[in-house]
Structure formats: structure tokens, C-alpha cells
């Protein structure tokens, strides 16, 4: 899926002959580039995607969108999770898990070394699920589906990286589903005794709210416990928003922080925001056709991100 997306993007870029214009671009030679692992196609997983995460031992974890043992997902396999472990001057590659229904978005790590992610598809109802991958002393990692979306009021098709709070609750978004108009939700998943996870819908996107709808990105916390995210669509102009969710006595309320105009400010944000000490920085917005052709929402794993202006291709 991802690689076909790149082909489409590449063809598009080639066709319209886009050129980089940057008068201050200077090559920097101080750094060195090296490839620490080749994906070579064939029966193994391939087409690595999204952002890597690093554990305290220096192991890197990532996802692929192609390959794996099960030849589903249009015959190309659904991708998996891999680990690259530092070993002297080498890196040891290990495939940890192959998916059977959909390719995973990028992962997050908890303090115990468990990985969490979402699939935009599959699960009990075919509307996606949130999963956990846990290391075991015996070697193989344990896959545990934490919550399967029904596609109804609890949301449908999670499409972004998750967020973990200090209590071990997971937060995310689904692009569709919800009570109002199938425009997506913000959710919280909480672990319960006995291994069950329960879902709470924090916000149900509607046409009426100026906070936008159809999120493609996850949510992030600020130090005060407010959540921030972006939507792909907005009632006023369809160009997407940045919104803030604030918890009050009667639940969570979304407010609009910024609405894109599809002018020099770009449109259709696809990545989550991140919070720094000075304010909010954003990840790149994408036009919808580019997002579809590419891999979907971009991750946000670091302390501060800044948006890249959308390049209009027509």
C-alpha cells in the first residue's frame, strides 16, 4: 500500500515538474550517512513506514506496510513490527510480529518496554483495533488486541499514533464513526482488572462544531492535561483545523484554535501537534490526495514539531 503510494506521489511530482526553490540551501558534510538495514522484498516484511521509536537499551522499533508471513492485504502482506538492536558496529534485525488484517501505524513504548499501536482495519468488527505487543522471557512477543472498534458510536478506523498518559490510559482518534454523523471521535482506553480495556468517547466530531471533523492525527497532552489535535475537514471551508479539548465538570469540550484557509497557510493537516515550552508547533498538513497516495497521518514522537506549508500541486 505504502509503496504504491510513493509511486503515485513520485509520478505526480514528476508530471508536474515541481522544483525545490531554496536560496539558502547549503550542503552539510559534517554528518555521515549509513544504511543500518536493507529491506529486500520477497517473503520478508518490507516498505518500512513512519517513525522509529527507541527504548532505553538503544533498540529501535518500527513498522512495515508490506510483507509478512500472511499474504493478505491485497496479496502483499499486511506488514509487521521489527526491532533493530545495536550489536557492536552492527545492527541485528528481528521481526517481532506480522499482521493479518491491516498495516500498523507507528508505535509508542511504555516504561516497561511494551509497544502499542493501532490498525485502521481488522479487529473483531473490521473497524480497526488498538493492540499491545509485549516482550516475553521466552523470546516471541505477545500480541494482545486491547480494543476492537465496532464502527458505530465508539468510532471507526483509528488512523494515527496513540498517546499514553502516566496512568497507563491510551488516547487516540478514529477518522469515522461516532454518534453524530460518522465524522470521527477522540477516545480514551482504560485498563480494567482482568485485562479488559474500556473505551470512553471524549469528543464526537460534528458538522455543527467549528472544531472540525474527520481527524487523521492523534492527540497530545499539554502539561495542564488539555488535549490538542488536528482535523482534515472543517465546516466552514473544508480545509481542516487545530483544536483543543478541555476537560470540565460535564466532560470534554473542543474549541477551535486555528482553521486553515488553503492559502499560504496550507490545508488539510494530517499530523498531530506537539507542545513545547513556547507554544504549539505543528506537523505538516497534507492535501487529501497526497495523503491517500502516501501512508496516512504522520507521527509525532518528539518534543516539538513545526508545520510544513502545504505545497499546492494544482
Amino acid at each position, binding site marked *: 500500500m505504502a509503496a504504491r503510494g*510513493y509511486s503515485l506521489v513520485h509520478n505526480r511530482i514528476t508530471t508536474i515538474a515541481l522544483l525545490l526553490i531554496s536560496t539558502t540551501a547549503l550542503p552539510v558534510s559534517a554528518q555521515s550517512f*549509513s544504511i543500518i538495514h536493507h529491506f529486500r522484498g520477497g517473503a520478508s516484511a518490507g516498505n518500512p513506514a513512519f517513525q522509529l521509536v527507541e527504548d532505553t537499551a538503544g533498540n529501535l522499533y518500527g513498522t512495515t506496510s508490506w510483507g509478512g508471513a500472511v499474504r493478505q492485504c491485497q496479496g502483499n502482506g499486511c506488514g509487521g513490527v521489527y526491532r533493530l538492536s545495536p550489536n557492536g558496529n552492527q545492527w541485528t534485525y528481528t521481526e517481532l510480529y506480522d499482521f493479518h488484517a491491516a498495516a500498523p501505524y507507528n508505535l509508542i513504548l511504555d516504561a516497561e518496554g511494551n509497544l502499542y499501536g493501532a490498525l485502521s482495519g481488522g479487529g473483531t468488527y473490521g473497524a480497526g483495533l488498538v493492540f499491545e505487543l509485549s516482550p516475553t522471557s521466552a523470546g516471541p512477543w505477545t500480541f494482545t488486541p486491547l480494543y476492537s472498534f465496532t464502527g458505530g458510536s465508539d468510532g471507526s478506523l483509528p488512523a494515527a499514533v496513540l498517546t499514553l498518559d502516566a496512568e497507563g490510559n491510551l488516547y487516540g482518534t478514529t477518522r469515522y464513526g461516532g454518534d453524530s454523523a460518522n465524522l470521527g471521535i477522540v477516545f480514551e482506553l482504560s485498563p480494567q482488572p482482568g485485562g479488559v480495556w474500556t473505551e470512553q468517547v471524549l469528543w464526537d466530531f460534528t458538522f455543527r462544531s467549528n472544531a472540525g471533523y474527520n481527524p487523521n492525527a492523534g492527540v497530545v497532552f499539554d502539561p495542564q492535561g488539555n488535549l490538542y489535535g488536528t482535523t482534515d475537514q472543517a465546516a466552514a471551508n473544508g480545509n481542516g483545523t487545530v483544536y483543543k479539548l478541555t476537560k470540565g465538570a460535564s466532560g470534554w469540550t473542543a474549541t477551535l484554535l486555528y482553521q486553515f484557509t488553503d492559502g499560504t497557510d496550507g490545508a488539510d493537516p494530517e499530523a498531530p501537534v506537539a507542545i513545547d515550552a513556547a507554544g504549539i508547533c505543528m506537523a505538516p498538513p497534507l492535501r487529501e490526495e497526497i495523503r491517500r497516495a502516501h501512508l496516512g497521518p504522520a507521527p509525532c514522537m518528539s518534543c516539538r514539531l*513545526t508545520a510544513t506549508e502545504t505545497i499546492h500541486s494544482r
Partner: protein
Amino acid sequence: MYELSPDGNGNYSFQVIHIFGKTGQSYYPVVLDPSGNLIGVAFGGSADPAGFVFKLTHSGSAWDYSLLHGFDGNNGFGPNAVMVAASGNLFGVTNAGGVAGCSNDSGCGVVFELTNP
């Protein structure tokens, strides 16, 4: 590339801090390295059509742009977002490329490291 900053009164100001021309797309987030530089990836353009890694260094009120690495297909095609490891080095993936004769939808791609970014 732009930034939203709170003004202290509940409002947010919007500032463009770097403009790519009609270039390859940049659709993955940029990250801050320990020195406060912004590092990101983009895709397309005439010089490095297989994608590139760039850095923006804060210089007063401006941001200076520099190219960290360009991909040519043989060393990867289509970088995704990079991350800054505890060592300060950058790690990232390209979604394709890196293997001769392996088309973009055949499960190729690389994991790369950029030291001293």
C-alpha cells in the same frame, strides 16, 4: 513551515518560518534536536527527487535552511519522519528503494542513520 504560538490571552498567532517553493512535498513532522534545530524530510524536487533530510537552524528571528542528506533511490527512496536517538544521531526509514531492481511496491526500503546531524 510554520508555528502556532499562544499570545497569553487565549489566542494563537500564526507564523511562517520557512517556505519551500513549488518543490517536493514535505508531509512528515520535523523534530527538534538537542541543540534546538528543526530536522525534517521532504520528497521530490529536482536535486534529490527520491527525497532529502533538511535542517532549519534558528538564527535570531529567522531560520537558516541546510541540506543534510539527499536520497537517490540506491540509498533509499522516500524518507519518512526521522527521530533523534539518545545518542543525538538521527534514525529514519525510507519507504522504498535501496535495492537495485526492487520496484517501489516490492517490499524494499532502508533504515538509515545520520551521525553528527
